[in-house]
């Protein structure tokens, strides 16, 4: 037997627990207390499972693999064989990404259950399904599950947004699901093309087949499959040109919901991006296409964030822009680029959650997030002002916060790949992020109020404080000791990375 088992215990639990929780909380529907207990307990449980699990594979339904040379069946994932079952993989990268996601899930669940009115069962169910879909995409190693998880992910995004209950969110959800038809069907076509070409649904098997057989003229099929794949990548992560819809989705849901949504979409971007690099990485123009989309997204997002007049929408566009920052690293395809991209995704998710939790806190002061009013909140809630400024510093890549560490890796990677333009754009984005955020913070927190209208005084729940400061502490810790995370990423980045040729 090899070191890795083919029936790792933790993988099914990471998928099945959220699904079961979603079913149960939807069923109990209105008992806020019970929902709180169940969802918090299972979120903590998920984090612990991720933390203590070993590495390995899981072959769902327990069908073995067929060794083509000997025509015997084997349950050992170490041997080269065609997998009959559907395969998930849990390794260091998966551990790091899912653990961060579980951490954010805990805070999101805590904040949501304490801040929302009754009838939160279906909404909490949606948040757990969001987690499940992202976990599947992170761990998956076969095209079927990739497709179905992207499908379920897009539906659940609509569910979380619709749950917020305003007409703006209904519109946003409707528009976003409209495009899910396009990208879901596109991914299905890509899947069908690859399956027709290779005959294997397992990603590793398909890659083995593509590399071992001379495809000749048939390789055109791969290009078209790549096109459709990119379409769903764009859709799942909200890259340009879908970014207006995705940012609307981010802006229209509750801030804690947005925290989970952006976590899901950024980790999905990483996971699908790695799959694309593995399958299509050797084709010409593949990384150029991915890079171009990333750079455009990065820039459009940040420019649009500059001209927004609402803190929620500024954050929404910044999230989109920083998704581009993540994909830049991945589309560079080099080891440093991949490390930078994945590290950026993890950092991004954390500091954006800090900012979004601050935005959530604004709801307790009457829900005024528009920058047209100046509120002078810093006097009323000084801790909130400090947290939001620390979050802004992390987001704009100022040392000693985590954003700095990943952005410096990204800049070095793009310089090393011979693309100083990309490095310049990354720098522009980080500076502009600061400007865009600080414009809003100045109006909302620092500038003395212009109107005499008093701000609603409200008690911000304890969990929000705790979540905020734990996450700020994490940004600092990762910023000072980046190796805590980078050591998880590097082995994968080395395995996936391809030489950049120009």
């Amino acid at each position, binding site marked *: 037997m090899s070191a890795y*088992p083919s029936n790792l215990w933790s993988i*099914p639990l990471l998928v*099945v627990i959220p*699904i*079961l929780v979603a*079913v*149960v909380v*939807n*069923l*109990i*529907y209105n008992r806020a207390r019970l929902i709180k207990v169940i969802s918090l307990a299972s979120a903590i449980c998920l984090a612990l499972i991720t933390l203590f699990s070993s590495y390995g594979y*899981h072959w*769902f*339904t*327990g*069908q073995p693999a*067929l060794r083509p040379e000997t025509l015997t069946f084997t349950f050992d994932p170490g041997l080269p064989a*065609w997998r*009959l*079952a*559907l395969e998930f993989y849990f390794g260091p990268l998966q551990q790091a990404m899912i653990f961060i996601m579980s951490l954010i899930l805990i805070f999101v669940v805590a904040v949501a259950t304490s801040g*929302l009115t009754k*009838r*939160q*069962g*279906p*909404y909490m169910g949606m948040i757990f*399904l969001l987690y499940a879909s992202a976990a*599947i995409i992170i761990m998956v190693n076969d095209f079927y*599950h990739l497709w179905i*998880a992207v*499908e*379920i992910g897009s*539906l*659940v995004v609509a*569910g979380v947004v*619709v*749950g*917020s*209950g305003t*007409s703006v969110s*209904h519109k946003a*959800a409707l528009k976003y699901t409209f495009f899910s038809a396009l990208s879901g069907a596109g991914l299905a076509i890509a899947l069908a*093309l690859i399956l*027709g*070409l*290779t*005959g*294997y649904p397992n990603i590793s098997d398909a890659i083995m*087949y593509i590399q071992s057989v001379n495809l000749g*003229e*048939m390789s*055109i*099929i791969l290009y078209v499959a790549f*096109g459709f794949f990119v379409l769903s990548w764009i859709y799942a992560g909200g890259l340009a040109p879908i970014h207006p819809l995705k940012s609307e989705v981010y802006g229209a849901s509750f801030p804690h919901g947005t925290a989970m949504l952006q976590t899901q979409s950024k980790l999905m971007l990483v996971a699908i991006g790695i799959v694309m690099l593995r399958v299509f990485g050797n084709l010409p123009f593949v990384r150029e296409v991915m890079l171009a989309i990333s750079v455009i997204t990065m820039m459009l997002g940040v420019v649009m964030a500059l001209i927004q007049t609402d803190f929620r929408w500024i954050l929404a566009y910044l999230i989109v822009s920083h998704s581009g920052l993540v994909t830049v690293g991945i589309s560079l395809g080099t080891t440093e680029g991949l490390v930078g991209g994945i590290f950026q995704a993890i950092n991004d998710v954390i500091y954006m959650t800090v900012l979004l939790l601050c935005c959530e806190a604004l*709801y*307790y002061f009457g*829900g005024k997030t528009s920058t047209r009013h100046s509120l002078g909140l810093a006097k009323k809630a000084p801790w909130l002002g400090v947290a939001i400024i620390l979050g802004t510093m992390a987001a704009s890549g100022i040392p000693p916060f985590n954003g700095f560490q990943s952005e410096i890796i990204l800049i070095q990677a793009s310089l090393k790949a011979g693309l100083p333009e990309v490095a310049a754009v990354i720098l522009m984005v980080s500076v502009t992020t600061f400007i865009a955020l600080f414009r809003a913070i100045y109006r909302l927190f620092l500038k003395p109020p212009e109107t005499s209208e008093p701000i*609603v005084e*409200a008690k911000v729940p304890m969990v929000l404080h705790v979540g905020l400061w734990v996450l700020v502490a994490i940004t600092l810790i990762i910023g000072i000791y980046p190796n805590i995370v980078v050591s998880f990423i590097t082995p994968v980045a080395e395995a996936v990375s391809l030489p950049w040729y120009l």
Partner: protein
Amino acid sequence: MDPSELRGKRGVIAVIALLIIGVGLMSSLERLAGNVSPGISRIYNILAYLVAPNNIATWVYDWRGFDTLIETAVIYVGAVVSALAIGRGVVQMKHYSEEAPVTSPPLEYRTESLTVILKLFGLPAAILLLSYGIMVVTASSTSGGGGFQCGVIMTSAYLLAAIFYGKENPIRFGKRFLIGIGAVGLGGYTLLGLPGFLTSGYWQYNVGADIWNLVSPTLHSIFGDPFRLTLYLQEGVFYSTPGIIPLINIAEAFNVIGAIGLIYFAFLYGWSEQPEDQEKGGK
């Protein structure tokens, strides 16, 4: 912005772009014609008869069982999202609310125009459709059919009865019944993976069929024997059992009935928060 914007310059550009996409797709599909690689599916075909006479059921629920579970979850999510959109369970912040939650009024029915014969025929037809759906789900592993089909047939019976009788629908699937049956379906399907997980370590291993001899004979017969069949094939006589596949199919059917029924219910009869609903939700 109105659709007229797509006329003129932008329209021409869009048409050219669509042409490029079409040509690219067609040129690749042309290469694929006649060259499709059968790959792993050949092995599935060789092994399928070990599980059940119906190959499709074996593929969908045995090899792709977990995939089908997630697909089932998609239907469930679709129903919950529709119900959320129509008005159920809209959450709001305790300290801050922008608008009142959306509620949807029921449709207005005009059943007077239907002929008497149709009304007489409606109830037996609906009952027969229901029993046809049940037949389809019980025969899933041996002949055509399965959970999805059963769910669709049963909910179409519901829709048929709603069209014939309007508010006096004889098939009275209530809100709670539908939510409960959907939850039982998805939850049951998920939990059917547990026996395999606990005994063999593989989630959703078909302990009843046990073609790879991973579990104890007792468990094998508990899940396998109720569905054991004699198969007379060219290769000889086989005593084959689909194992947990029929049970999964029933769970699947419940889920689909719950999900599609809920969507129909919400659109037909509207959705509003009743006080009795808030006391204890669900089933």
